[in-house]
């Protein structure tokens, strides 16, 4: 019970601030916390990125290995995205098989990359029906102060850029890089008592009535959406949240991702 009381006090604090047009860390409603992107920290991975958004830290590693294609797509490579909410990252995370939160995190990031056809999967075919390149995106959370999705998605797309396919390591002949055709960026918009704000921290997440993650692309199109939360959203609200998502994604892309 003690925990619930603290939780309620913390929510009330967030509500009070928001209703006065403020956030605990002094940000505007449409401001992200500081973002730091560091590439290639893990030399065992073909691509890796540490993304820090405020106090949230995510490490994403990409590994590329040969494997067998799915029977229904014999000429296409395989993309697999996995997320671990390891107990190191938060007092709320527990060890054990992936829970629904980590499955959702992985699937939302995956959807953005898949939906935008960011990776040219057909270029990853080695021998039709027999052997293709498999791209594993592994999201490792290190510190959770909210908005893991946006951090993980930025880490994933950054890691995918400039990957050399490891032909030699697996005794295959060839030389190629991973073909990347888009740079999808996720922006999560939270609704707290009718107010919209981006990049919620963990206290704001727990106070949010609704969240909408918008993943958008270079041309402004949307390649992934995920709503979470306890109540319904009006059409007007959804349109507004989507607009905010696309606009903020454009800003992040300009600042942290190369033009392709």
């Amino acid at each position, binding site marked *: 019970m003690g925990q619930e009381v603290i939780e309620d006090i913390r929510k009330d604090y967030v509500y009070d601030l928001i209703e006065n047009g403020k956030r605990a860390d002094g940000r505007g409603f449409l401001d992200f916390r500081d973002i730091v992107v560091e590439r290639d920290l893990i*030399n065992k991975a073909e691509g890796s990125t540490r993304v820090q958004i405020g*106090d949230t*830290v995510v490490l994403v590693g990409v590994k590329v*290995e040969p494997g067998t294609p799915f029977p229904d797509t014999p000429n296409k490579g395989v993309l697999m995205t996995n997320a671990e909410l390891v107990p*190191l*990252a938060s007092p709320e995370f527990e060890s054990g098989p992936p829970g629904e939160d980590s499955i959702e995190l992985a699937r939302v990031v995956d959807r953005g990359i898949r939906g935008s056809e960011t990776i040219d999967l057909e270029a990853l075919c080695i021998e039709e029906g027999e052997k293709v390149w498999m791209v594993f995106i*592994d999201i490792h959370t290190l510190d959770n102060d909210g908005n893991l999705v946006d951090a993980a998605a930025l880490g994933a797309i950054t890691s995918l850029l400039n990957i050399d396919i490891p032909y030699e390591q697996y005794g295959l002949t060839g030389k190629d890089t991973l073909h990347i055709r888009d740079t999808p960026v996720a922006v999560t918009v939270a609704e707290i008592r009718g107010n919209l704000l981006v990049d919620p921290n963990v206290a704001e997440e727990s106070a949010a009535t609704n969240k909408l993650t918008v993943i958008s692309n270079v041309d402004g199109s949307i390649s992934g959406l995920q709503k979470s939360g306890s109540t319904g959203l009006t059409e007007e609200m959804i349109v507004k949240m989507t607009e905010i998502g696309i606009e903020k994604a454009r800003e992040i892309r300009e600042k942290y991702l190369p033009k392709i």
Partner: protein
Amino acid sequence: MKEGKIELIKDGARLSGRGFEELRPIKIEVGVLKRADGSCYFELGDNKAIAAVYGPREMHPRHFQNAKRAVVKYRYNMAPFSVDDRKRPGPDRRSQEISMVSRKALDPVILRELYPKTAIEVYVEVLQSDAGTRTAGINAASVALADAGIPMRDLVSSVAIGKIDGEVVLDLDAKEDNFGEADMPIAMVARTNTITLLQMDGRLKKEEFERGLKLAMNGCRKIYELQKAALVEKYSKNGNGA
């Protein structure tokens, strides 16, 4: 140990250029995570490990509570991208064993009797692996426990020795581990010179074992000084260590 014909010692030197009794470069950072009660980032050569400590806090599930002392939980986990061939996520037999021996390496120094019925949880994530991850994990965990303010009798320091091309050497890297003849990790409480972890893989003569043990204990003493220095460095910056 794989059978191999790789020459690990050439003209009296290791492939990395290190001396027989030389550790890989070590980097220690204290308090690197915000949500954890204590944390530490530890690099040993190409190994990168991070440890977080939570607690003492309520023990779940409750029937694991001990009425007289805190229970230490230790989880060693490798990131899927930490090794050459992607590791399937989640615990396997190896990481479960490492978790167990690592917990037992730390148990003796923690004043567990001060916190009955609670859990002290230690989480170690290996982000990049190059042989010696369990020792890096224990070194990180021990500093993270101190950073969390858990009362301890001393820090625990850990390193491996091994045998390559017939020579007993300190702190094997991955190549030496794969093609060497023996690998022996230890953990030690420096103040009392007591060993809290000892494992061995491969084959050593009695004389080699004894020499190796001495060498490993010396290595632990060096790491112990670095651990202490890292803690002092963090907590001397300002009064409350924040």
